[in-house]
């Protein structure tokens, strides 16, 4: 989780990632930033995020993104 927050901080600083729960809906992350984020996550956690998983519900908070990573790691 800490590593994920570091990645997020690096891509889009100045957001309270512990508490914000509308990262996509609140426009903290736009499509291009999400693309960078996906690429970072795939490298750091050795998972592949399929297109169908790229929905606001999976990216609206750091916790949700973490849930997605864990789920994809298990499925692997």
């Amino acid at each position: 989780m800490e590593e994920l927050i570091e990645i997020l901080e690096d891509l889009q600083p100045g957001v309270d990632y512990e508490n914000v729960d509308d990262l996509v809906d609140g426009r903290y992350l736009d499509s291009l930033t999400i693309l960078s984020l996906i690429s970072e996550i795939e490298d750091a956690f050795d998972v592949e995020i399929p297109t169908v998983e790229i929905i606001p519900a999976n990216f609206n908070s750091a916790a949700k993104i973490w849930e997605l990573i864990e789920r994809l790691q298990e499925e692997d």
Partner: protein
Amino acid sequence: MSFFSPVFAFVFIPFVVIVYNLFPKKLRAAVLLAISLLFFAFVSRWLILYIILSIISIYLSGLGMQAIEKKKKEVLKTVEKDEKKAVKESYKKKKKFVLVMCIIFNVAFLFMFKYFNFFAVNVNLLLEYFKVGRSITIVKHLAPIGISFYTLEALSYVLDIYYGKIEADKNIIRLALYVAFFPQLLEGPIARYQDTAEALYEGKKVTFESFTFGYQKILYGFAKKLIIADRLNIIVKEVFEDFNSYNGISIFISIVAYTIMLYMEFSGTIDIVIGIGEMFGVKVPENFRQPFFAKNVSEFWTRWHISLGLWFKDYIFYPVSLSKTMKNLTGKAKKKLGNHYGPLVSGSVALLAVWLLNGLWHGAGWHYIFFGLYHFFMILMGNIWEPSVAKACEKMGIDRKKKGYRIFQSVKMSILVFIGELFFRAPSLAVAFAMLKRMFNAFSFRVGELFELGMDARDYVVLVFGLIGIFIMGILREKGIDVRENISKKKLVTRWLIYYALILLILIFGAYGQGYVPVDPIYADF
């Protein structure tokens, strides 16, 4: 049939509701489908054949893909672990084949009706240039209504099945009603199967409450169109048709007027669609969310024509940027450009694809393609500049969250959007550039000039008050205050007083009758 005609609002809608309610719940979906197809046939006659073919194609493809998926699961149970990958690949290929065939089939109709002539004209120009003594015959034909809207809905259905997001529908009536629901045929919004199909099929009775609640939204749509859009149309028509007779400020006003008119016409139509949906207990997705409050062009497109933006994001942007080729490109780019700019490379390729298609979706013409490229450029630049702007603001001690800065951002964004919409409205690229040039070269201003644009003092006063009203509603919605819910909770007398006031406002201040030309349904042509 225009949604803004009295016949549609006061005869057709009540008639549909009465007929629909007369039937038992089980039959209502079929009745609504029959009405929708009749509506289609009334506008587009025999071209109804094409929407029926589209529906059949996605119905069969959906079932086909589902059958392949089922077979795959059965086979996977019987094979060894090391063979599983090959089995999965082979079934994936089969599924992809069905998907691609279905997409080609549907896009072919779209191409034939919308793009063939544009393609032919440009190929003929090339043939002429190279002095080849042949040419492609230009065929004049009308396109079925809403083909650009229903085709994207149809494609989203098969794509969602392919991606495993939804199950194929075995019930063709439910599927057909999702694609052909009459209010959505003219100008969308492009709903997803999950948004409306089930609720439409349920056949909920239209109650007095759902009818009046829906009608409230319809009246608001009428107000936007009749009080504001049709009034602004006077300026737009006047100046765009003869811009050389006007100087810079008038041209600027007409450009701003056009964007506001487009917003009022399009969002007003969507209000009507949503209102009709609410009568039948269906939540048609919202297509606008206070677009002019956006910080930048990229955000503007998440608030304007939302359903189209989401469609491109889900089915073009992410699939392209996350394809294998693009991922390899991202990997290489990251090594050279770092983590922020590396993924931007594949992102920009995908973004370019999105905006080229977005331009083309709006129409077959170079000015539409330019409109798309213009937005691609603005969004990309915004993204590239963002880190530098953030740093510069920090150095200068500017708080980007302060109201003053936010207003500055919205004004800057609006000006960029106004220019984009100029390319959209102008009959050709050359005219759009000529208008821009004249706007700067012949810049002068006299107060009296405002009254030479076809509107009188009363028109201006009504317009200003109308826009203030819409602006206040926008602020309330932005703050999460649901005005409509609040009104519906009021006592019966107060509620009806508000409805009557709105009807009176439209009747008194609507721009109809002598001297006014109503705006044609702009998006219905796309």
